[in-house]
C-alpha cells in the first residue's frame, strides 16, 4: 500500500514526512536537507530551479525568483494583504481574469497554484526517490485562518503536482496531532507558531472525533527573519562606531555577517554569551579590519523585546477571543524554529503557568503531524496502535536503599524487562520487592507503587540465590511485577494499575527534582555502593580467614582482622574516600592469605602417581 505524504507547505520553508513503523519520520530531499526553501526560479537559460538552487541565484535574478507565494495563493488581487506584499516583492504580479493574482516569470504569467505545484512536484520527486516507490496521495497543511478559496487553491496546487490530496489540514491541528494531543478529549490547546516570516496563534479544542479551531490570530509579517535583521543592524552599527566602516556596503561582508548573526542567535539558545568573530571583514586604505565582539543573550533579548512582547500580546488577545481563560488552557504547543529561544519558552510559562510541549523539532512538527493524519486515514496509526511511553523510570529498592531501575523512562510500551538479583545476608529466605517509580537515586525519594514478598528461598550464603525480577507493562499501562526464585521456581507477583502512579504535574516535578538533585543523589548513591562493596569484602575476608584455618600464620591473620575492624568501623561514615582507603587496605591484607596458602607445598599428597602411558589410537585403525 502506497504511503500518504504529509506536507508542510510553508511560506519560507517546506517539509515532508511519512509514517514508518507507525511513527512519523521526516523525509530528506535530494540535497540531503530536511527542509526545502519554498522558492521557485526560472534561470536565464529557461531552466526551472526549485528550493535551495533557486535561493542560490535569487540575488541576480530577482524578477524571476518567486518566494512567499503562499501570501498570494487563493487571494483576490484587491486584498489588503496582496497590496501590502506587492510593494515588498521584487517580482511582478497583476490581477488575473477572475480577480485573483497572476505572477510573472520570464514574460509568462502563472497562477500562484502553479508555482506552489512546482515546489510540491520537487517534494514528490524527492520523496519517491528516497522511498523507492510511487507516492499518489498527500495531506497538505494550511494556516487555520485560510479561507475556502485559499484552501481550494492549495488543493489545486497539489493536484497539479500529481497528488490526490486526501485532506487539507490546519497547521495547528497538525502540530497537536504530532504530539498525540488528539487523544486528550475536551482539552484546550494553544499552538504558538513563530516561523521565519510569520507569527500565528491558534486556540484548539479537542472533541470526541474532531479538533476544532476556536480562535486564530497573528502577524503575517513577524518572524525569525526579523530577529536576524535586528542582530545584523546592531552589529553593523557597533562596528561602524569603532571603525568608521559600514560593512553593509560590501556584499561579501554583509553575507558573512548574516551567516554569523544567524549562528549567534542559535547559539544563544543554549549559552548566555557568544563571540562574533569575522576576521578580515573588510580591507581599506588603513589595512584589513577584523570584527570581533561579544554578544550576550541579554542583549539579544533587549534587541527583539518588542517582537516578543507583540507575540505575547497577540497570544493573550486570541485566547480571550476564544472565550477561554489563560489558566484553562491545558496544553501549549511550540512550532517554528524561533520558539527555541529561551525567552519565548519562559514567556509562555509565565503566561500559562505550565510547560509548553517542545520535545519535537519545531521546524518539523507540522509535517510530522500531517504524516500522522495520513497514517490515521490509512489505518497505519490505529488508535489501538498509538503507543505511549512510560514517563518515569520503574525499578526496585536494592541494598543500601538505592533504587535500581529496571525500565528506563521514555521506554515505549508494551514492554517487558527483567533482571536477576540475590540475597543480602546469609540464610536469607525471603526477599521484599519494593516497586518504585521515579528518577531519584535513593529509593525513599521516589514513589512507592507497591510491595510484596517472595519467600521459600532455600537457605544459602548471601549472593548465591538467583531471584529474577521482571517488570511487564501492557498497552493499557498496567504494570505487573514478578519475582521468581530460579532454584525452586516459586514466584510471587503484583499488579499495579496505571492510575496509582503520578499525575502529569507530579511527573514534571519529579523530573525537575531529579535534575536539581542529580549531583547530591549521585554522591549518596556512590557512598551506598562503596559501603555495599566494603560490606561484601568484609564478608569475603571473614570467610577466607575461617577457611584458611591454621594454614596461615598468626601475624597475617592479625593484620587482616585489624583491617576488617577498621573497615567495619566506617559502617556509618560519610566520607567515601575513607571507606575506599580502608577497603584497599583490607584487600591488600587479604591477598596475603592467598599468597600464604599457595606458598605451602601440598602435604600428604596421596594421589596416584602420574605416569606417561602408552596408548593406542583405537579409532585410527578404522577408516
Amino acid at each position, binding site marked *: 500500500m502506497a504511503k500518504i505524504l504529509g506536507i508542510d507547505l510553508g511560506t519560507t520553508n517546506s517539509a515532508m514526512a511519512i509514517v514508518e513503523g507507525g511513527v512519523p519520520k521526516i523525509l530528506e530531499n535530494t540535497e*540531503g536537507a530536511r527542509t526545502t526553501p519554498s522558492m521557485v526560479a526560472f534561470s*536565464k537559460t529557461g531552466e526551472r530551479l526549485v528550493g535551495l538552487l533557486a535561493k*542560490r*541565484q535569487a540575488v*541576480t535574478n530577482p524578477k524571476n525568483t518567486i518566494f512567499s507565494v503562499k501570501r498570494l495563493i487563493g487571494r483576490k488581487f484587491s486584498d489588503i494583504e496582496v497590496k501590502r506584499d506587492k510593494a515588498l516583492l521584487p517580482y511582478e504580479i497583476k490581477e488575473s481574469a477572475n480577480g485573483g493574482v497572476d505572477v510573472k516569470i520570464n514574460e509568462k504569467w502563472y497562477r500562484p497554484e502553479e508555482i506552489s505545484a512546482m515546489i510540491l512536484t520537487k517534494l514528490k520527486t524527492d520523496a519517491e526517490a528516497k522511498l523507492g516507490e510511487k507516492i499518489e496521495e498527500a495531506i497538505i497543511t494550511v494556516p487555520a485562518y485560510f479561507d475556502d478559496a485559499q484552501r481550494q487553491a492549495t488543493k489545486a496546487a497539489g493536484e497539479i503536482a500529481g497528488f490526490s490530496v486526501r485532506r487539507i489540514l490546519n497547521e495547528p491541528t497538525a502540530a497537536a496531532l504530532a504530539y498525540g494531543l488528539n487523544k486528550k478529549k475536551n482539552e484546550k490547546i494553544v499552538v504558538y507558531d513563530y516561523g521565519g516570516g510569520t507569527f500565528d496563534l491558534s486556540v484548539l479544542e479537542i472533541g470526541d472525533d474532531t479538533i476544532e479551531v476556536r480562535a486564530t490570530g497573528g502577524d503575517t509579517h513577524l518572524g525569525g527573519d526579523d530577529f536576524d535583521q535586528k542582530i545584523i543592524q546592531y552589529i553593523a552599527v557597533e562596528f561602524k562606531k569603532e571603525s568608521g566602516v559600514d560593512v553593509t556596503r560590501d*556584499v561579501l561582508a554583509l*553575507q558573512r555577517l548574516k551567516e554569523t548573526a544567524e549562528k549567534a542567535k542559535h547559539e544563544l539558545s543554549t549559552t548566555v554569551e557568544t563571540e562574533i568573530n569575522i576576521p*578580515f571583514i573588510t*580591507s581599506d586604505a588603513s589595512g584589513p579590519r577584523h570584527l570581533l565582539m561579544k554578544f550576550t543573550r541579554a542583549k539579544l533579548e533587549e534587541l527583539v523585546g518588542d517582537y516578543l512582547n507583540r507575540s505575547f500580546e497577540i497570544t493573550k488577545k486570541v485566547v480571550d477571543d476564544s472565550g477561554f481563560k489563560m489558566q484553562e488552557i491545558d496544553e501549549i504547543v511550540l512550532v517554528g524554529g524561533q520558539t527555541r529561544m529561551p525567552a519565548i519558552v519562559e514567556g509562555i510559562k509565565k503566561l500559562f503557568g505550565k510547560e509548553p510541549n517542545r520535545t519535537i523539532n519545531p521546524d518539523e512538527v507540522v509535517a510530522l503531524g500531517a504524516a500522522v493524519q495520513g497514517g490515521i486515514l490509512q489505518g497505519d496509526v490505529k488508535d489501538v496502535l498509538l503507543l505511549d511511553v512510560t514517563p518515569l523510570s520503574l525499578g526496585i529498592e536494592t541494598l543500601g536503599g538505592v533504587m535500581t531501575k529496571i525500565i528506563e523512562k521514555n521506554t515505549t510500551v508494551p514492554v517487558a524487562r527483567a533482571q536477576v538479583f540475590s540475597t543480602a545476608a546469609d540464610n536469607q529466605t525471603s526477599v521484599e520487592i519494593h516497586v518504585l517509580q521515579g528518577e531519584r537515586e535513593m529509593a525513599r525519594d521516589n514513589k512507592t507503587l507497591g510491595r510484596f514478598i517472595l519467600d521459600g528461598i532455600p537457605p544459602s550464603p548471601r549472593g548465591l540465590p538467583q531471584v529474577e525480577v521482571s517488570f511487564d507493562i501492557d498497552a493499557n499501562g498496567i504494570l505487573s511485577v514478578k519475582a521468581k526464585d530460579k532454584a525452586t521456581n516459586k514466584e510471587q507477583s503484583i499488579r499495579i494499575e496505571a492510575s496509582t502512579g503520578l499525575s502529569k504535574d507530579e511527573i514534571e516535578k519529579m523530573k525537575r527534582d531529579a535534575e536539581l538533585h542529580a549531583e547530591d543523589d549521585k554522591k549518596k548513591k556512590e557512598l551506598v555502593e562503596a559501603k555495599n562493596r566494603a560490606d561484601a569484602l568484609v564478608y569475603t575476608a571473614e570467610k577466607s580467614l575461617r577457611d584458611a584455618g591454621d594454614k596461615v600464620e598468626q601475624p597475617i591473620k592479625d593484620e587482616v582482622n585489624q583491617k576488617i575492624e577498621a573497615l567495619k568501623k566506617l559502617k556509618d561514615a560519610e566520607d567515601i574516600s575513607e571507606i575506599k582507603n580502608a577497603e584497599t587496605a583490607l584487600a591488600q591484607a587479604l591477598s596475603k592469605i592467598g599468597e600464604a596458602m599457595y606458598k605451602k607445598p601440598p602435604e600428604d599428597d596421596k594421589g596416584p602417581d602420574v605416569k606417561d602411558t602408552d596408548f593406542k589410537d583405537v579409532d585410527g585403525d578404522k577408516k
Partner: protein
Amino acid sequence: MDDDVEIINEGDEETFKDKLKKLKDELKAAKSERDDYLAGWQRAKADFINARKDEERARTEFAKFAAEGILLEMLKVADSLELAGESSGPIYAQLREIFKEHGVVPVESQGKKFNPLEHEALEEKEVLDEKEDNVVAEELQKGWRIYDRILRPAKVKVGVYKNKN
C-alpha cells in the same frame, strides 16, 4: 458450572438456529479481525526490519561524511587565511592537506558558467562582452566539494550583459 449451556426446549428450535448463526458470524468476524491483526503485525515487523536496514545504510553514509559538520566550520579558517593573503603559505597548505584527506577539494568557479549547484550569486556585475553573460565574473569566497557532494557553494559575482540597443 458451564454458563454457556442453556436449556433448550423443542419450541426453541428457531432460537437454536439463530444462536448457531450468531456464533458463526462471531467466528467469521473474529477470524477477519485475527487476519487484520496478523497482517498489521507482519507489516510492523517488516517496517522495523526495513528501518534497521535504513539505519545501517545511513550509518555507513554517516561514517564517510561524519566529519562534514566540523569540516564545514573549518572552511571559515580557510577563508580567513585566504583573506589574510596566506593562501600560498604553509599553514594554508597544512589545512588543504587535512581537507584532501577527508575528500574536501575546491570548486572551480572563476570563468565558469554560473551553476546554482556549485555557485551562490551575491551580486551582479555588468560585463561588456556578450560571451561573459551568466558567467562567473569574480569569486568572492571559495567553494568546496566533499566527495561527490557540494560542501559549500562558491560565493560569486555573476556577469550580466545588458544589450544597450
